[in-house]
């Protein structure tokens, strides 16, 4: 296999819980921590999309922030095109190589900035001349389906769909290698969602962007992604080509997630009872074991090993022979 464009190697990110009081600090009471991302490895080829799917609290957004360098991993490596992300993020000449599009454009864009200021911000400090910057901004807007008449408008005057287009223009203006899309359509109406999804696919074909798509919506992942990684409480449970994973999910959690998604014309089932446990009271073995209908004795004692099933990876004792 040739060199992968994005490599996430055994990454861990932990957060501390609450604050210690002065007394607790004097007594050197240990800080309670939990791993929001717990030994996660995945990879993606250039020009492809890897979807990270999970519920709230699964660690998917933290993983996305790690990939663009907004957070530093406590352990493990993240490489983009063979270079470590921290290295890329530090270098001024690499500014804008990694970009992120957030869920809610109304809060990710400054409402008082004009569209031009907003989109040009990532390249404003580059060596480019003023005219060149303007040219790039107009081009980025054109690619996202906006004409230059919006340049002077304030972002708060735009509709939700237009705002998300501006957010995408802002992400692509600096010729990024990789874009993390954090729930790019979940704040939008269904009719606008389709427009934005079409736009993202067109841009990827044109510019060979590598996307990391973070979503809770299996349908969005099916449309946009080439491979899919399912996360549950900070750990990967299944990773493989999107078509195979979604048509024939192996892990019981992936199955539950797909069954629960409402579909027109078919009644969705309540696939699992209960809710994920808190990060502070994680089960000792497999994290899904307390809710899993296939749970066995062995699941209670140890986290299942990575098992390869054809071209898929799955973490479940049902498949670990």
């Amino acid at each position: 296999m040739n060199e992968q464009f994005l490599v996430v190697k055994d990454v861990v990110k932990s957060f501390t819980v609450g604050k210690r009081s002065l007394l607790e600090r004097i007594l050197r009471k240990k800080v309670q921590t939990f791993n929001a991302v717990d030994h996660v490895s995945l990879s993606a080829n250039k020009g492809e999309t890897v979807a990270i799917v999970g519920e709230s609290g699964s660690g998917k957004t933290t993983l996305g922030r790690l990939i663009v360098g907004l957070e530093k991993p406590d352990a493990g490596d993240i490489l983009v095109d063979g270079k470590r992300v921290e290295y890329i993020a530090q270098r001024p000449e690499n500014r804008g190589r990694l970009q992120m599009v957030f869920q809610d454009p109304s809060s990710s864009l400054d409402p008082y900035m004009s569209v031009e200021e907003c989109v040009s911000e990532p390249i404003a400090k580059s060596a480019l001349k003023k005219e060149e910057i303007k040219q790039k901004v107009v081009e980025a807007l054109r690619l996202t389906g906006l004409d230059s008449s919006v340049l002077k408008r304030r972002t708060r005057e735009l509709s939700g769909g237009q705002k998300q287009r501006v957010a995408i223009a802002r992400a692509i203006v600096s010729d990024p290698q990789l874009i993390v899309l954090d729930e790019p359509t979940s704040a939008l109406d269904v009719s606008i969602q389709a427009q934005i999804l079409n736009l993202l696919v067109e841009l990827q074909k044109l510019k060979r962007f590598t996307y990391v798509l973070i979503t809770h919506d299996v349908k969005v992942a099916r449309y946009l992604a080439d491979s899919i990684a399912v996360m549950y409480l900070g750990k990967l449970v299944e990773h493989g080509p999107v078509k195979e994973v979604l048509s024939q999910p192996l892990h019981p959690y992936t199955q539950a997630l797909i069954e629960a998604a409402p579909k027109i014309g078919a009644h969705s089932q309540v696939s699992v009872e209960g809710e994920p446990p808190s990060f502070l009271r994680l089960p000792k073995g497999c994290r899904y074991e307390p809710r899993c209908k296939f749970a066995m004795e062995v699941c209670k004692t140890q986290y299942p090993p990575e098992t390869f099933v054809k071209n898929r990876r799955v973490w479940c004792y049902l498949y670990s022979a």
Partner: protein
Amino acid sequence: MALLEVENLSVEYRSSSGSVRALTKVSFTLDEAEVLGVVGESGSGKSTLALALSGLLDHSATLRADKIVFMGIDLLSNIESVRGTGVFMVFQDPFSSLNPLMKIKHQIFEAIKVRCKRLGESFSQEEAKKEALELLKEVRIADPEDVLERYPHQLSGGQQQRVMIAMALAERPKLLIADEPTTALDVITQAQVLSIFKEVVKRRRMSMIFITHDLAVASQICDRIIVLYGGMIQEVGLAEEVLKEPKHPYTMGLIGSIPYKSKEEGALTSIKGFFSHGVEGCVFSPRCAFAREECKKGVPKLNRVNGRLVRCINYGKDYE
């Protein structure tokens, strides 16, 4: 007999920059034990409809209607009399509906107290506790004893929404209005809460108006569906029929916009443009794939087509 009859309901919001019409001449009826879905995108007026029916519109809104009759009571003159007792509303975000400073126990007790007062029953703490436990079991909360003693922030979103449903049940309303009750929840929790709604509505023979932007969610629970766009009813029909064979171009577009394929299979059919106010003629015409000159002439009438109502000149060239 219909439980709720609404005729020509219009709502306008005044603001410093003029007034905006959120709902225009909305008419429908709701039968007993029926679940009516109201589907629409942001700006369609669906939440305004919910607020108007439960009398929760704020002061900047003016409501006009020919008739709103609920269980024989004229709501236009005394809407407060039914709120909470005959009509109960469940909102999108359960955390902001619950009082953060009160234990769940006391919030459910409060609901029971209101009902006791209304029905002239006597209220006792022990009875109320027993009932609260029953209600929490009915909405499938696994450890009701424990949940009663907790504060809202200690519960998950799914549990909070279950508590809201339990409070609704304590009031024994005839009509439940649920405004996007599962939108803030995760997929698996959403399926759980939807099935609870389905169960309690059936068991208690309640009627429900279920407001959502998600057609797939609506298809899970609704008997009939109203599709709103730009504050006007565009299509009404049995849920199954509307979703299987949509007649209005907007409904078609909505269903086509749901991604059910991969990018290799081609682009998604999307609805072009975005919603804007102040359109002449059919409100959807600027975005419609079939729009013609005639669409701008006037607002098309709701045509009756095979037991369905469709506001589109492709089904009859009358204007309002």
